[in-house]
């Protein structure tokens, strides 16, 4: 899953980015409001982490612009102020949630999961198709009662497929979920990953159609 991190402080930004990567997310990091607006226009994100204090204005303004453009991506604001009026202002401007600095990494990850879950109308972090279950919070994959060991790449690809089970997902979209920067992608990575997943979960679990991409049938 791909997140947009909007944070001007290099030290805090680096720490959040690293924490989110460990949590299995792909991160784009914008340091200014302008960069954030550009990134949000260019790419769909599963969630946006938005710091309020930015060098070129308030993150609240970025948020208002997003909502004005009918962008419904879940937005979690990062605020340095525990003041109620700031929280209210952020939520009223269209934020879905907020964390107050200094925050806990696990709490941040849980809030991101919760907001994406709500956004996707899922009741839980368990994605199930047939006898395969993927637990987004515990980062586990089970087939029947057996736990299946998957790599980080396999996990990301599988979660992308399961979240939109029954729909084809293009190779490009899967690459975007896998890599921060599409230029790094080796041409056959997706194929290799899909091959590994089919081996672990059953050949028919993921179907392919040329020109459409990949799908996990419901």
């Amino acid at each position, binding site marked *: 899953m791909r997140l947009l991190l909007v944070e001007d402080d290099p*030290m805090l930004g680096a*720490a959040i980015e690293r*924490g989110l990567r460990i949590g299995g997310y792909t991160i784009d990091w914008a340091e200014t409001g302008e960069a954030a607006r550009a990134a949000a226009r260019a790419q769909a994100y599963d969630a946006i982490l938005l710091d309020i204090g930015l060098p070129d204005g308030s993150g609240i303004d970025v948020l208002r612009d997003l909502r004005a453009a009918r962008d419904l991506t879940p937005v979690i604001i990062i605020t340095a102020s525990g003041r109620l009026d700031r929280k209210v202002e952020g939520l009223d401007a269209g934020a879905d949630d907020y964390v*107050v600095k*200094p925050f806990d990494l696990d709490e941040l990850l849980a809030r991101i999961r919760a907001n994406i879950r709500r956004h996707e109308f899922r009741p839980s972090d368990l994605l199930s198709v047939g006898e395969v279950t993927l637990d987004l919070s515990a980062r586990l994959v089970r087939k029947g009662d057996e736990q299946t060991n998957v790599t980080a790449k396999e996990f990301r690809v599988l979660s992308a497929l399961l979240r939109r089970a029954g729909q084809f997902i293009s190779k490009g979209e899967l690459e975007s979920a896998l890599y921060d920067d599409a230029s790094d992608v080796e041409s056959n990575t997706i194929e290799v990953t899909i091959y590994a997943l089919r081996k672990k979960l059953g050949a028919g679990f993921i179907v392919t159609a040329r020109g459409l991409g990949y799908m996990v049938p419901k």
Partner: protein
Amino acid sequence: MALVLQRKTLAGRLFRRMSVLLTGVVIVVGAVAFWASKRQVDEFYDTELIATATLIEALMREEAQERELARDSGSTSVGEPASMSEEDQEAVSAYARWRVFHVWREGREVLASPAGPALVPPEAPVEGFDELEQTGATWRIYTLPLPQEGIVIQVGESLDVRGALIDRIALALVIPLTLLVPASLALMWLTLSDGLATLRRLVAEFGGRGVRDLAPLDAAAWPADLRPLVESMNRLFERLAASVEQEHRFVEHAAHQLRTPLAAVRLQAQLIAREEEPAERAVLAASLRAGVDRATQLIEQLLTLARLDATAQADGVVDVHGAAVAALADIAPIAALRDVRLALEGRCGPARGAPTPLKLVLANLLENAVNHAPAGSEVRVELCDLPDGCLVTVVDQGPGIPDADRRFVFERFYRGGGERGPGSGLGLAIAREASRLLGASVVLDNRKDAASGLRASVRLGAAAIQQA
């Protein structure tokens, strides 16, 4: 009333002074009134004595004339001394029972009132008053000589008579006056406490305030003579409120800004706990230390700013050249580490200011310049004597500050976008605050020559000419 007994209360002091004054005034008024009354009484009684003597004289003359007529008609004996008839004597006695009279002819008493002091015939009678001590009383005697007839009339009166009247007058004065003193004092006390009640109300108004209650009082609602006090208190409140507000904003801002490095530190600690690769752990540990360093630096700079806020503006004379040399020496190790050359150009004389703010201005401008200067570049301090002071400029070859950002950079905690050096974003804020204490301001400008870089200049005032 307990208030009045305390020596130190204003009401007590006023009341004591006014009581002494009032008592003195009452005593003097009483004395003057008594003395004036006594004189009036004396004059009145003396006039009465003269009138009585004149009356006796008149009666005697009338008698003598009647006798003359009788003699002419030959009905009365000849040679009977001038006298008054029995009825006249009685009339005079009745008219003034408390008076005595004596009529002398050629040294012999021819007529006398039945009572009174025994008088000796005056040898050389002169018209006038005399006083005589006799039979335990003092008598005032009026002597009226009639030399043509060889008669001397003396009319006397005991001083007790007028004494009694004077006593009555004195009593009539003393009673109201003695009553007047306590009554006036009581009224005075009421007036005084009423007058001072306003003052007490003002005291209560100020005394009852909470620490945070700095609302001004309505000066127009207080009496004119309390208004200067109210107004100066209001000005004090205003300054206090401004400084409390500033402190409040500062503390809030500081706490706010500390949260960012703390958030980073917290996340870094969590990341270290999850990292199993020793090399990665070392990297994370280094950034954790950097985070702690940044928070520490931030705290130190906050303290510097807080202390600076409290410093009063100093109006001394500072050695600008010496301060610049010292500041360059201080930054030299960091500059060497970052491979930045330092230079000092020009000279300038002493300027108005104080050493500590000047040191802070120079140190922070230099630190800012060195932190943003690329390796191998030069940071230069230019000194220039001006007719009215001294211009200090710190020039670097860094990226400069975009025009759009220029107004933000002095804001506390602002950290420019783009290329980043270390620093909390407080350096320029400190430089600005400190230069304000020098009565100067920091002007930022990008270099006008071909090279990129920032020119930060401070125009210091001339040192005041020492008055002999």
